[in-house]
């Protein structure tokens, strides 16, 4: 069990499995971009964990991307979850200052709830 209690990690773990499925491969074909996520437990920028969602190679892992990601996002844990599950749309998150973007705007535009699998409920 990883010692971190980021909720986002649970979702990214599912993403890791998801990306290997047919639907996941479809995604890499459709988007083909590399996103880096900096996710902080509470406040953006503090104690961030870095993840890479590589929709070019079809990989999800913890750590920084070697090279330049198409877009880098900063989130607090809950806000990433809200965006990934469609509770808050990314534009809204940006306007509210809940999401910081670095990199290409058009790449950022393709960062939508659609790319993440939805967690099922026990």
């Amino acid at each position, binding site marked *: 069990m990883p010692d971190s209690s980021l909720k986002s990690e649970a979702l990214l773990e599912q993403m890791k499995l998801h990306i290997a499925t047919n639907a996941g491969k479809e995604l890499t074909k459709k988007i083909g971009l590399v996103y880096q996520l900096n996710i902080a437990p509470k406040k953006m920028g503090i104690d961030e964990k870095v993840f890479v969602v590589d929709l070019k190679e079809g990989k999800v892992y913890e750590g920084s991307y070697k090279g330049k990601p198409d877009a880098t996002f900063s989130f607090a844990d809950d806000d990433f979850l809200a965006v990934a599950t469609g509770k808050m749309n990314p534009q809204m998150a940006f306007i509210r200052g809940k999401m910081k973007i670095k990199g290409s705007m*058009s790449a950022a535009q393709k960062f939508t709830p659609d790319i993440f699998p939805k967690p099922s409920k026990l």
Partner: protein
Amino acid sequence: MAMRDLVTGEPSCAVPGTSSSNPLAALTNKILGSSNKAQELKGLPGTSVTVPDASSDFRTEAPLSTIPGSEHEGQQYQPPDVQNSEFLRQVHSVAHGDPAGAWGEIHQPTILPHAPGRGIAPPYAEFEQIYDQSASSLPQPTLDGSPQRVLSSFLHSFVDSGRSGVPFHPAALPMLGLSEGDKQCIRDRSCIMARHIFADKSEEYINTQVNALLHSLDIDSDHRVRGHIRGAYPELEEYWTESQGAMNPRMPHLASKWASEFSQQTEQSDPEAWVNSFEQIHGANGWASEFEQEQTQMTLFGQTGDYMSKMLAMEQTHMLAHTLAQNTDPKFQNSKFLQFVSKMSRGELIVDENQIKPATGSVSSGWADEFQTQHSANPNSWADQFDREELSNGANKWANEFASERILQKVEDQWVSEFSNLHIQDWADEFGQQFNGDVSGEGLADDWADSYGNFLNEQLVSFRKQSDSSRGVYEFSDLNPYVGHPNPLKEGQELFRKGLLSEAVLALEAEVLKNPENTEGWRLLGITHAENDDDQQAIASMMRAQEVDPGNLEVLLALGVSHTNELEREEALKYLYRWLQNHPKYGSLAPPELADSLYYGDIVRLFNEAAQLAPEDADVHIVLGVLHNLSREYDKAIIAFETALKLKPRDYSLWNKLGATQANSSLGADALYAYQQALDLKPNYVRAWANMGISYSNQGMYGESIQYYVRALSMNPKAETVWQYLRTSIELASRHDLFAACDSRNLDILQKEFPL
């Protein structure tokens, strides 16, 4: 309209004995009168509508006691919505028939007429009418020796002419120096008033009268003047209307629903009884004193507001506005977002909020301020409040709402300071760069600008969520038919057994309201919510159950499961460990000192020991399965659930747990089989239907996923998460035509499009 009719004793609905001391009458007039603040809404899309100086007028409003039956009555009484003019037209048309028939006919749900000459959609038009008209119902301040006085007496003579039935003759008046706004006010008002006063006369007669009046005042009687002003900004109107539609999907039905509710009221009892019962419940003064308390709190809050941070925010938004203004896209230039930012940079928005002054004046003017603040801050809240008002039973509820709105302001305030902390300069730079440098996505500006429209609304929604459920506070439904039921628990159990989950929720809520100390009521309520796919409510009710009975194993397990679903790992661990501690057989395994520092590994080890101790106990395997879900060791979790299922093959929730675990580890096909088992055992298991949708969606089968989501929603339309997922699936299925149906939560259309 109905409310004012009811309390002020207008001819259509006479209430003898409702005197000026009636607090409800005062209340109504305050509500309807003060809604003129919404006029400011029109400023938002950037049209140059002249807004009469509403705030100053409002302060000088005639005292409450003048309202019913006084000489101001004709002016005060204004039908505040379109429906009323429709109403009057109908009265007029049946004026010579029998009144009872006319009454009935009027209260048929009427189709609202489009406002002629205005290029705006009906839902908004309707509301705007309300605003316009109630704005125009401002009493003219009777100032000495001023043109106002002349005007006032002139208008009175007009009203009197209606009473005496003598045609009104134009008169020569001195120059009054009316502004465009005033004129507009008078024009609108006199038209409506005339309809009212001359309800027994013909349309032509009314028109002649109005024209005579307007002519004397040198006012152009062409109603389309306003339409023309608006017409200059067709695009803006579109934006505005669109966003209004999106923000208030229920608005179109509002007026007619209200009307029908009103007609129910009148069927049930005569209006006086209603007024009396109101006074009985709250006392003539109870409400006022309650309100005063609120007011004091308001004042306190107003003083604590940090003025400096607002100034800072203003400064920084100014820079942002500057950057944004560099963008030349006309659509973006006209966008509400930019309007908002520039407003904020000019300090308009913040100044509005600062109007929460120490309420040294009368309570009523304090309220006016409050209302205005609400309005400028959240155009939506008024409508929203109305909507909820309509569902609620009494004014008490309204007072509560008032209190919560007040908290909302705090949120608004927080937001302002949060905004100012965001290093706007960086943000603005970044935004500007990205905008100018990399505008390859088409309609980029639109997207961003549009989404601002949802911003306030979203804030409201998220606030409500945040304030209630996730803090573990149970949110009761309004209007519960089971309150007063002799045995709601039994009824709830029965409904639950039949699979009518949403109905069972109501019955069980009635039970826990009646017996708040009943663990079983809370527990079953929690289970029902979980099966209805609402974990937050499930958690809230289970926590209440746990307060009453801290050692209840089912409750502890349910809390563990729901927190796992919400990805709240520590909470989940805590409850699952307590399950072990409180278990009669395995309790001895759990050393109490562990409770202070829960390590996942220790807990799993203990449960494995328990499983060895009693391999035939399905419950231990279930908890193990949940624990492995927490650690995302899905393969182990699947084994645990499968073991449990061998022991309890007819446990539908267990099938669902297996399915969900399989789905989370991307074994979609297996998951579908497990869910199907669950649904065979319990056909109305909303959670399993929703999970089916998720599973299809994750497998890229969006059409199917929509079918299942819609099915789940048809059983529980309150499942917020499912609505979000549905929207995503609609997007992915490229069925943009269904967004409107989804946003307005129109299940009929969705079910027709995606039958299962």
